[in-house]
């Protein structure tokens, strides 16, 4: 038998851990339901030849979470587990490092690489400028900038944790990116055909301009097999920048807080610096050093996706729609306007590079 003092110290810990289970089950249930909806609807539309945008599970999970969190008063028993979604976010980001080899960027031609850097710099500058123009909160503008510049939802989620932004901001930014990504699936191939773009140029364009990786690759593949492959390469180059861009924003916002509040700059930077970014970079380095085999990389990618599934469900469940609408329609307008401008900017870049160097 355990002695009383041991019982007193272990029981609260056990109870506390058990207290997470209902919320964790809710996160998993919402995420899996979103995945089921994606598969069911896409399968039905494909079987019946219905032209319908491929809406990723992410959007369904967020919508279900929003409905549950705002239309139903959830018992408090779920709170502890649901609040762990940020933990799963960070686990997912670290594991995501296994999908981004820094050396991948070298596989691209020099011209494509230059275009990627210009796109990221231009998108960041444009979205931050639009955010200021429309009077968005600076952190929301940062999230939109990161989402449009790098890799959509993953980048927003990564930046959201790094800069400690509001849940509503990330939900709005994610919704805008996903809605525009679904639109891009149809619009980009139509524009490409209208302009008689070559496969390689079109692949570079979708890799540069479409934010979510799945939609970027799908847009390229809709056009042609070659365009799809080029799109994967260019998009991978953008994705490889996620750590650096998030790192830049984390340092920027740390310095913003530092200027107002903290005397000990080193301690503040150490405190504010997202430790999971180091984990992300460490896994990337391990991948670059060939520590993992291909099947192991695929397995780590799977684990990352499962962790993000819990995260996306939590984003919806923890978002207060009333406060979201208090913020107005400006974020969505900024997102849409920015996406259109970036699409034209990158189209001009690709066509120009194609005319000069034959991309």
């Amino acid at each position: 038998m355990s002695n009383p003092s041991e019982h007193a110290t272990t029981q609260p810990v056990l109870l506390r851990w058990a207290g997470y289970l209902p919320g964790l089950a809710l996160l998993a249930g919402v995420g899996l339901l979103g995945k089921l909806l994606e598969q069911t609807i896409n399968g039905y539309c494909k079987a019946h030849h219905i032209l319908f945008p491929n809406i990723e599970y992410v959007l369904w999970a967020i919508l279900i979470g929003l409905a549950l969190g705002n239309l139903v008063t959830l018992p408090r028993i779920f709170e502890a587990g649901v609040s762990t979604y940020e933990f799963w976010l960070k686990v997912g980001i670290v594991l995501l490092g296994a999908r981004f080899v820094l050396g991948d960027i070298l596989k691209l031609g020099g011209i494509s690489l230059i275009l990627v850097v210009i796109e990221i710099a231009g998108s960041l500058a444009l979205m931050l400028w639009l955010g200021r123009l429309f009077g968005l909160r600076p952190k929301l503008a940062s999230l939109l900038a990161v989402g449009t510049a790098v890799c959509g939802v993953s980048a927003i989620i990564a930046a959201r944790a790094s800069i400690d932004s509001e849940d509503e901001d990330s939900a709005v930014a994610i919704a805008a990116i996903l809605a525009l990504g679904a639109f891009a699936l149809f619009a980009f191939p139509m524009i490409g055909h209208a302009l008689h773009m070559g496969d390689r140029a079109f692949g570079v364009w979708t890799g540069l301009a479409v934010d979510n990786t799945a939609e970027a690759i799908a847009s390229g593949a809709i056009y042609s097999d070659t365009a799809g492959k080029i799109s994967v390469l260019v998009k991978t180059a953008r994705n490889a920048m996620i750590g650096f861009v998030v790192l830049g924003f984390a340092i920027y916002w740390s310095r913003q807080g530092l200027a107002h509040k903290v005397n000990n700059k080193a301690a503040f930077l150490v405190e504010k610096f997202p430790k999971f970014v180091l984990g992300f970079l460490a896994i990337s380095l391990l991948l670059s050093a060939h520590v993992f085999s291909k099947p192991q990389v695929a397995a780590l990618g799977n684990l990352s996706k499962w962790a993000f599934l819990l995260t996306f469900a939590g984003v919806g469940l923890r978002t207060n729609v009333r406060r979201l609408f208090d913020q107005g329609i400006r974020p969505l307008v900024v997102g849409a306007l920015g996406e259109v401008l970036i699409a034209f900017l990158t189209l001009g870049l690709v066509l120009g590079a194609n005319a000069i160097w034959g991309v």
Partner: protein
Amino acid sequence: MPNPPSRSSLARSLTVDTGAVLLAFLLAALVRSGLVKTIPW
């Protein structure tokens, strides 16, 4: 202006971050050793 972070929030942030990194590396080690199979996505 935001309040300066308290010691408890710092501790919580460090715990969550460190815990997430440790769990991720534990999972990576388990995957590499072949001890666990992941559920296909």
